[in-house]
Each structure stands twice: as C-alpha cells, then as structure tokens.
C-alpha cells in the first residue's frame, strides 16, 4: 500500500484530499504545519507528499527545500492559491515535482498523485513504448497501431506520448496542457478536447474505437488494453 503525506492547514480541504486518496486505496497521514510534516518525514517513509504552499509556520517552498536538504526525495505535489507563473517556477525550482493551483477537483489531486507515484514505471529505457495495440518509437517518433503505421503531427505525437507514459491513468485537461504545450494558463476546455478529438480520429479503425476514453468532468485516459 502506498503511503501519502497530506500537508494542509485547512482541515476541510485536507479531509477532502485525504478522502479522495483513501478512496483510491492509499494510506494517508495528515499534517497541518510544516514542523509536523518534517516530524513525519523524519520517522516515516512516504511515497508521495501533497503540500499546501502557504502553511501557518512556514512557506511550502521552504519546506520542500528543507526536505530535499534532508535527503527526502519523495515526490512532492505543491498545491497553492498563488497561481502566478513565477510562484510555480519557484515551487518547482525548490524541488517540488508538480504544482497545481486552487481551486482543484479532488480528482485532479488524485490524478496528479497517481502520476507522481507511477513516474519512472512507465518510462521506457530503450526508446520504445507499447500500450495495448499501440507501439511508439520515441526516437524516430513513429507510431503503429496493430502493426499499421499512424502518421502524426509533432504536437499529436507529444500528446500521445504523454498519454502513453501514463497508461490507464486519467489525465486532466490542465495536466495535458501543462505537459504537452508547456503553458500554465487555463485554456478553454474545448481547446484540449479538439486536440484529443483529432488524435482520436487518427487512432480509430473500422469497428474499433480509438483507445482514448473521455472521463466526463475529469479528463482523458489511454487504455492499456
């Protein structure tokens, strides 16, 4: 069982995040201050940490820096109402692994935690990935579906690659936009939808729908089968 530390001073928000993570089958420990969080990380091993950017006793950035200085390399998801790009950069530079802004759907937290937990597992070492009937060559940037080549544009390839690195995981539109395009503003929802729609049409075969599912209100998932 994976063990996740939720650092959040607001009890209601913490309860919401914890409930969602427990529902996913994770074990959750909660901390309301930076000091308490440091106490936990010194005695327990966690698989991931969600961290509020503003804590009563210290800045989340300072806490991450402290953790990294203490050789705690557990992946950290920073959660903040400070949405500015500078803040995001500061958070990631201090050693945070992902940064999301409030308000968030608890689902989004769960999705991002999942991505952090499984990071490295799906990453192919030899430059080739296979997800179900999909085969992706990361070096030549070629894609085959059931052995047939699928011509993709550069951005379509990046999109498929991101989905394929997290097979079976639900990825939100915001996560997709951040990871594939590298921008952090909130585009209109339908912007990502149409890009996915395009990719999906290229992966459709007669009698066989594309292996990308839409999870209503949450995001998209590339099926592993």
């Amino acid at each position, binding site marked *: 069982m994976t063990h996740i530390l939720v650092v959040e001073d*607001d009890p*209601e*928000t913490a309860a*919401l995040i914890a*409930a*969602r993570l427990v529902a996913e089958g994770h074990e959750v420990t909660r901390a309301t201050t930076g000091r308490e969080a440091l106490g936990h990380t010194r005695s327990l091993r966690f698989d991931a940490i969600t961290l509020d950017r*503003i804590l009563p006793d210290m800045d989340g950035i300072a806490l991450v820096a402290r953790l990294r200085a203490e050789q705690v390399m557990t992946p950290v998801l920073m959660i903040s*109402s*400070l*949405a*500015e*790009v*500078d803040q995001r950069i500061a958070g990631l530079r201090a050693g945070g692994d992902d940064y999301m802004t*409030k*308000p*968030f*759907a*608890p689902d989004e937290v769960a999705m991002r935690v999942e991505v952090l937990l499984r990071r490295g597992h799906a990453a192919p070492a030899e430059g080739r990935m296979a997800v179900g009937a999909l085969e992706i060559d990361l070096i030549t940037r070629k894609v085959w579906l059931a052995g047939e080549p699928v011509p993709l544009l550069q*951005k379509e390839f990046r999109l498929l690659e991101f989905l394929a690195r997290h097979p079976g995981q639900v990825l939100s539109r915001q996560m997709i936009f951040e990871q594939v*395009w*590298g*921008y*952090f*503003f*909130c*585009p*209109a929802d*339908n*912007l990502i939808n*149409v*890009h996915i*729609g*395009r990719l999906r049409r290229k992966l459709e075969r007669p009698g066989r729908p594309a292996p990308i599912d839409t999870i209503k209100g949450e995001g998209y998932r590339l099926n592993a089968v």
Partner: protein
Amino acid sequence: MPVTPHVPPHVPPHGPPHVLRLADVRQTSSFRLIATLGLVFVAAIMALQALTYTLTQRELLARSDAVLKSEMARFGAVPGDRLVAALNDAGRQSASGFNYFALENAQGALVAGNLHWHGAALPDHPLELAAGVAAPVPLRVLVHGLPGGQRIIVARDIGQIAEIRQRLLWLSLAVGLGVLVSAAALAVVLSLGPLRRVQMFRASAKRIAGGELAHRMPVSARHDELDLVATTINAMVEEIERLMEQVKGATDAIAHDLRAPLARLRMKLAAQGGAPDVLGELDAVLTRFDALLRIAELEAAGRRAGFAPIDPMVLLTTTAELYEPLAEERGIEITLSGGYGHTIIGDEALLVEALGNLIDNAIKFGPEGGIVHLALMREDRDLVLAIADNGPGIAKSEREAVLRRFYRGAASRQAPGSGLGLNLVAAIVHLHGFGLELGDATPGLLVRIRAGSPPI
C-alpha cells in the same frame, strides 16, 4: 490587409550600451557651458595678444624711425659738396652692417654709400623692406629728396624687431591654441561626471520601470541639482511602491480570503455530488476570480523576469497551431502572413496567452466557415501583430468599452467566457509596453498589437 512578406530584420529595441560617446558628451549642458566660456576666454586672450603685438611693434618701429630721422637730419645738415664723403664715412663706420646709407643721383645711380636699392618711396616716410630685397636682413628705410633730383637713403637693420614680432605672433597663437585645447579638455572632463550620473539615473529608471520598485536613484553627498532631481524621483518611486504594495496586498487578500473559501465550497459541493448547474455557476465565478487576480497581478507586479527575445512570427505560428483544431471544428480557417527573423522582447507564455485569447474570440464570434487572419507587419519602426476575423466586429462606439472589465458587447452576451478576455490581453500588452488597437477589418474585428520601442 497590408502584408509585408519579407521585412528587413528588426533591430531589437534594447537600451543603449552604457558607453560614453563623444556625441553624448557634446550635448551635455556642462560641456556647452564650459566650451562657450572657453571660447570667450580664448577670444579675450587673442585680443589682448593682438593689442600687445600692435603696441610693441609700433613702439619698436617708432624708436627705429627716430634713429633714422636723426641720421637723416645729420646728413641734411652736411653741405652738398661733403655729402659723398660723409655718406661713405658713415657706411664704413657701420662695420656691423647695422646701418645702410646711399646717395643717388637724379638718374637713380648710386653715388655714395653701401645700399643698393633703387625702389620708389614717399620722401620722409619710413618704409619696410623684407629680407633679401636690398640686404639679407629686413630693413627700415627712410628716403629724403634733395634739390636736383638727388636722394639720400638711410636704412636700418630691423632683424631683431622682426624676430620679436615673429615670436610675439607665435606666442599668441600657441597661447590661444593651448587655452582652446585645455578649455575643450576641461569641458569634456567636467561634463563626464554629470553625464555618468545621468546615465546611472537612466539605468536606475529602466530598472524601476522594469518592475524593481525597491530600486532607487543614486544620490551623491554633493547635494547638487542632480541630487535634487534624484531625491524627488526617489520620493515619487517610494509613493508608487507603497501604492503597489497596497494593491498587491489587496490582491493577495482577495486570493486568500475570498477565493480560497469559494474553492473549498466548490470542492465540498462536488464531493457531495452537487448539481452540475450549481457547480457550473460556481466555476464561472471562480474563473472570473482567476482572471481578475491574474490581471491585477500582471498590472501590479510588472513581471518581466520571463522576458527574452522572441520571433513574433514563431509566436503567431505557435498560437495558430494551438487553436487550429478549434477553428477547424467551426469550419474556420486560420491564415498566416509575415516573415520570420524579427525579434521582440517579451514573455512567450504571456504573449501566447494574449494571442490565444484573441484567436479564441475570433473563432467564437466569427461566422462558421469564416477566416481568422494572423499577420506580422512592419509599420515605421514598429512590428505589428494583427488578428483579423470576418465576424460582426465591434462598433466604433463600443471599442473603448470592451477594454473595461466585465464589459460584454452586444454580440457576445450569449457566448461563454469571463468577459475579461480582452482585459487580460490589454494587461499583458501593457506589461510589455506594447500598444493595443481595435479596428475594423471590414467586415470583422481587427486587433493590432504594436510592438514598438519599450518605454525608456
């Protein structure tokens, strides 16, 4: 639409390098003041030298002439029959060759003396002969006519006077030139200090305008007029900083004390399986909050940390690619014109966001099957990024109003969005020091972002 396919490379409007050039020095007020004073001084010295020269040479010549006249008077008193002997005597006695004498007959032939010169001269008026005319040295000559056409000529070597004269002339020239050069050098040296300080002011002003509101103009201990200006500007910046802090404080308070509880409410509602329409409305409020906060932050922070040189054509292409599938879904075509190879200084992510907002609007309001045209143009020294659609456009009377917060034009009331899109665009454009112009694409809306020289 005017389109320039291959515009010559645009020189990025960087600030001038901080090297003092002579042209800069020449334009300073201290240089002009000292140079003017220097010129007046040189003129005064030259006048003084000229006066000294004139008076000295007149005095020396007068003395020489007095000697000539007394000699002439001596010969004038000699009876005619002894004149030849007297002149020959005088010539012989002047062993040094300092004095010259001659007696000419009516035909101009030398009768006695040692001076071979037959030039015309006004009687009893001394005149000067340059060296080499009658003798190897310059002479002062006095001619006296005798009855019967004879004439006595007495001359004196004025080599020494000529030499003194020459020296005086050279001295005046040297002094004048010396003063001129030193005045110019002094002007340059004395204007370098103030110029350096003004350049420091410029650098400081640039940093302050770039968002470093904690920066101050350098003030020296001299309490001169430049310090007075710097102190005044510093007081101004301090006040601006205080206001900005207030705005930022208010923004942070809104972010934390209003938005956070709302966000929590949304989470709770969602967790309890709240009605989608309630959630949707809450989301709309939160979206507006986000947009407002973002605009406030952009306006207050002057965030220029992410500024770097960008090719505007790459910017247009990137954004066009991002929105192309969305346009296609509405049967709208995005077209591009302009050339690569220009440079603007800006924050790529923010500019893509601004352009994206404009393209999104153009797609939203344009007719199905329409065209959104993106163009990079050059006008005078500015680069202009234009986004034109063939939708309903914005009436001239409404163009100013749409840049106001939450304003939604008659045509857009049914469309989704925060009503802050153009505000956000305006804030981003302003942050860059660019201009935003709304115009008529006949038909449709034409938005132009004018990337000119940055402020200061």
